[in-house]
């Protein structure tokens, strides 16, 4: 194991999959000559050439659709959105073409495509550039959605996504690109199955269910809670769809209390779905109502103080945990 950044882990995943399968190509804005807006594709043009690492004009709908068409005839495109906020321009291709083709064609055309890029609110980018898109995409049957929070998860989930025969969105955490973590050496194949949550910290009093940018937040809060004699277990969903119910249920059956903390907005969000499934399946295990911590239900303001107010934060999470623990 060695310590690398989240960005470097993604870069390794891309390079390894491009190397492994000649049908894989990477396409998007600034991915080649500029090395990626966030430098995730650094060095790939030099290594794989312009046929496999392809710059596009600013035409998200166009190149996302190009990827879907290429996937229909057997290529395995990796389509990078400079941010998932821009994928909204390509919503029709991602939601109406990629996942529907298999059903509409009676099983003749599966679409092995990966859509990826930074997702979720970053820092003072204003309303148009701060979208967390997981609940939008998880709502469409036929799509798979994963949200890695660590370098190792980022590498393993991206590699698995590229090999999946269905459309997969890898929603990278914009604020975590420079974060570091331990990952196996490059010659060891890291593959993390979609649909497996990961217990990032064991605990006995409360389950904090989180993903992507809220994982480091939950870890920090768990350390604070420890000082107050509250033992929090941290369940990192890693995949939103498929959703690992078993790991969630096991954790909540042990702690009997749950707080869901998500980077997304609250209405019809991931937390709502998780909450529904817990109460439906293990209602008797609960000692307190489930709490959710998410964004406030407003477009993201630019002002730093207001943005902080809108986002989930340590104070809100602490308060929610104490409420379910009646502490």
């Amino acid at each position, binding site marked *: 194991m060695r310590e690398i950044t989240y960005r470097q882990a993604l870069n390794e995943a891309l390079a390894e999959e491009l190397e492994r399968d000649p049908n894989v*190509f990477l396409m998007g804005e600034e991915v080649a000559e500029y090395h990626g807006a966030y430098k995730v594709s650094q060095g790939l043009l030099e290594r794989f050439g312009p*046929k496999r690492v392809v710059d*596009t*004009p600013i*035409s998200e*709908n*166009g*190149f*996302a*659709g*190009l*990827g*879907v*068409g*290429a*996937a*229909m*005839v*057997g*290529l395995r*495109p990796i389509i990078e959105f400079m941010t998932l906020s821009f994928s909204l321009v390509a919503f*029709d*291709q991602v939601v*109406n*073409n990629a*996942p529907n*083709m*298999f*059903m*509409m*064609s*009676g*099983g*003749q*055309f*599966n679409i092995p495509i990966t859509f990826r890029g930074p997702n979720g609110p970053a820092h003072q980018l204003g309303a148009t550039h701060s979208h967390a898109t997981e609940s939008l995409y998880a709502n469409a*049957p*036929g799509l*798979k959605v994963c949200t890695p929070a660590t370098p190792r998860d980022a590498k393993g989930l991206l590699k698995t996504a590229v090999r999946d*025969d*269905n459309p997969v969105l890898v929603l990278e955490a914009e604020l975590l690109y420079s974060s570091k973590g331990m990952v196996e050496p490059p010659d060891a194949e890291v593959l993390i*199955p979609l*649909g*497996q949550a990961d217990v990032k910290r064991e605990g006995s009093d409360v389950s904090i269910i989180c993903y992507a940018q809220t994982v480091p937040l939950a870890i920090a809060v768990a350390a604070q809670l420890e000082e107050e004699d509250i033992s929090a277990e941290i369940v990192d969903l890693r995949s939103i*769809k*498929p*959703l*690992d*119910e*078993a790991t969630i249920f096991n954790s909540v059956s042990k702690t009997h209390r749950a707080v869901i903390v998500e980077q997304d907005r609250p209405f019809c969000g991931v937390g709502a779905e998780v909450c529904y*499934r817990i109460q*439906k*399946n293990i209602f008797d295990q609960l000692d307190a109502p489930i709490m959710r911590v998410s964004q406030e239900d407003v477009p993201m303001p630019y002002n730093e103080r207001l943005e902080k107010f809108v986002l989930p934060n340590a104070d809100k999470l602490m308060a929610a945990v104490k409420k379910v623990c009646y502490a």
Partner: protein
Amino acid sequence: MQRAEQRDEVEMLALMLLIRRFEERASQQYQAQKIGGFCHLYIGQEAVVVGAVAAVRDDDYIITAYRDHGHALARGTSPNACMAELFGKATGCCQGLGGSMHFFDKKNHMYGGHAIVGAHVPLAAGMAFASKYREEDRVTICFFGDGAINQGSFHEALNLIALYKLPVVLICENNLFAMGTSVKRSTSLKQIVDRAEGYDIPGDIVDGMNFREVRDKLSEIVTSIRKDPHPAFVEIRTYRYRGHSMSDPASYRTKDELEKYRLDDPIIRLRAQLTREGKLTNEQFDALDKKAKETALAAVKFAESSPELPVEKVYDYAYLNGPMEPGRPRPADLEQKRREGAPAPKAQS
């Protein structure tokens, strides 16, 4: 040499007749409520797709919009499978899961059947991108209507196709109306082909009521693309005799206009050409037409007597290689277990 051409043209006339008679039957069955959803008929436009099919190889990629019955039939999808698809039956070309607007036939290189206007033009770019990526000499033929040319996806795709020099023939089937809105009311251009100029793509205008003109122009274009991959744009001027869909009485146009085009019917025209040249007798034509009618009727009978997919099969077409969630049994596995007599495990949702 001449014999082959002669045979081909008679075959192509038979194909146009098949499409016409198939659609007349589909119209009748729709009115009898055997066919659900929307149903857009191609009657009047047959020479466009048949002319195109006559000009390309069987392994070239074909993709179109929602007025797609003719494209599948021309490509070789069986009339039975097409009619069964309209009836929503398991024997349909998409097992009854796509319907009228979503005909796919992978074996015959028919890539849909796409019902969001303009959204398939980027897909055509991707198919052609793949051909170029693999260094194949395949050509992608992308059909769309005059309504698509004002959609953003169309413009983004044309720029990408031109920028990457992709082997695509963009065929605008200009039937003068996007649903009920005439081209004059929807498009700022004097002629649609000028869209191509904006992307530095060579463009042509072809009379879509004349099979030979369509075939000959597309042959010339496809030959040129095979030598050196590049895009081309063809505005094919045609006319649909029926409304936009079955529910449209087409009151936005005059009877005189419709009659004018009916007199220029592509089937009558090719028949006259062949008869004049001594390649087709009236008896031969009548036999072709009789056969087309019989085939269409047989397709209805086939569709009527075909089974539907069992409801639990829907879960098998959300993802390839399910199950979707770990630990959750696939519905097909549950069915298997039930057949084996074991009690079905309780699925969580």
